[in-house]
């Protein structure tokens, strides 16, 4: 038990920050991101032995954090987060400070449908492959490709970025 806890703690210390950042891009609020990360890590703890034995730890952890964010977004205070960002004026990123960049990008992400947002974040921030993203989201590779493509196009439009063939 102690060994299991030590191994898990070692994993959690390293993974928590990255998971929290992914959750933040998904939901736009650090407190919710931290809650989602903790919820996800508790799920990982419960399945620790199987995950250590059978593999798929990173995939499961990311699936858990994405699920936690999506679960949160179904709760009543979802609108508080997105509503709070409505007043931010979108601007071209090259003229922005770090804080501006964060607010603008997060606001733009928040305007994407959840599926597109998850695909963009997992592909372009978490650096998962199409297959891995499909596994995390429980969908097909074709769906990931199309949602990523649409999400990227929408994001570029919102951020006034030039189109690229980056999907």
């Amino acid at each position: 038990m102690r060994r299991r806890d030590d191994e898990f703690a070692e994993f959690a210390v390293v993974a928590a920050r990255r998971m929290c950042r992914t959750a933040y891009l998904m939901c736009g609020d650090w407190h919710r991101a931290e809650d989602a990360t903790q919820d996800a890590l508790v799920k990982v703890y419960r399945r620790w032995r199987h995950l250590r034995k059978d593999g798929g730890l990173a995939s499961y952890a990311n699936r858990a954090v994405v699920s936690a964010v999506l679960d949160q977004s179904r709760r009543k205070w979802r609108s508080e987060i997105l509503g709070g960002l409505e007043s931010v004026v979108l601007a071209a990123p090259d003229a922005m400070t770090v804080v501006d960049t964060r607010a603008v990008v997060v606001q733009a992400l928040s305007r994407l449908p959840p599926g597109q947002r998850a695909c963009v974040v997992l592909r372009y921030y978490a650096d998962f492959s199409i297959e891995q993203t499909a596994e995390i989201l429980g969908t097909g590779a074709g769906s990931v490709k199309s949602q990523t493509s649409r999400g990227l196009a929408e994001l570029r439009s919102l951020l006034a970025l030039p189109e690229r063939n980056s999907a």
Partner: protein
Amino acid sequence: MNDIERLLDAAANDDDRSQNISVEAILQRGRRAVRRSRFAVVASTALAAIAVTAVAPPAISALRGPQGASDTQVAAADGTDTAGGGKAVPPPPVSLLKHIAILMRCQSGDKEARDLNKRYGVNTFDKAGPIDAKWTLAVKSGVGDAFTAIFVSPDRSIAATCHSAGAKGQFRGSGVVDRASTTYVVKKGNPHNLTMTQARGIQVPKGVTRVLVDVPGEKLAREALLSQSGGFFTIGWPHDDESKSLVMVRIRGYDAKGAPVFDEKAPYQAQRIPPLGKR
């Protein structure tokens, strides 16, 4: 890294804020979640076993091992055959842990046991409330920080057995608690009705001064550690917090003259039958 990746990376940059994620808090929540799921497994196992044996009412904690005693326990015999029942392995040692130390380690487990009863709507006769300093510590056995203890409510209606494998165990020293009625009759008999605590193998009727427990596969019976009053007893502390298979043991009680006055079978969980060499 393309422009989108750079923007996402910048947006997720949290170098200017401290992270409020506590791994210790996650570990605590995780342990609780694992523990709850184990309780649920034990509960369903208990209900199934009760249904098969038909000796107890629906009771969540029915099959969780030895309990029972009152006030101060005594080692009833020394392994000789001068008393009724013949030779036996000596009783387990009395725990050196203080009453208050054991109580503190059993309170969260007691809350879980009561919550479980409430959730499943069983043991509705249990009105004794949480274990606290007013409860009598009837018997305690163990070595180091591992123990089995039996608390008896002030009105003596409920006996709460608390087991812990100590800090090395899965629950890190937090006790697992079973609560049972000392008066609820689960099987009528002659000369004794079988109460819930007797059916669970933690208590013997009045007049019993020696308790022997026959564990399958062992040549000699085990002498139980018996309380001075109330007839509560234990054969030792758990060597593991992990739930293992059930073992049907035979419990024999003898009076001061060596005459047999009690003979019943009860289910013990294997992890609560300490290996003889480690007692």
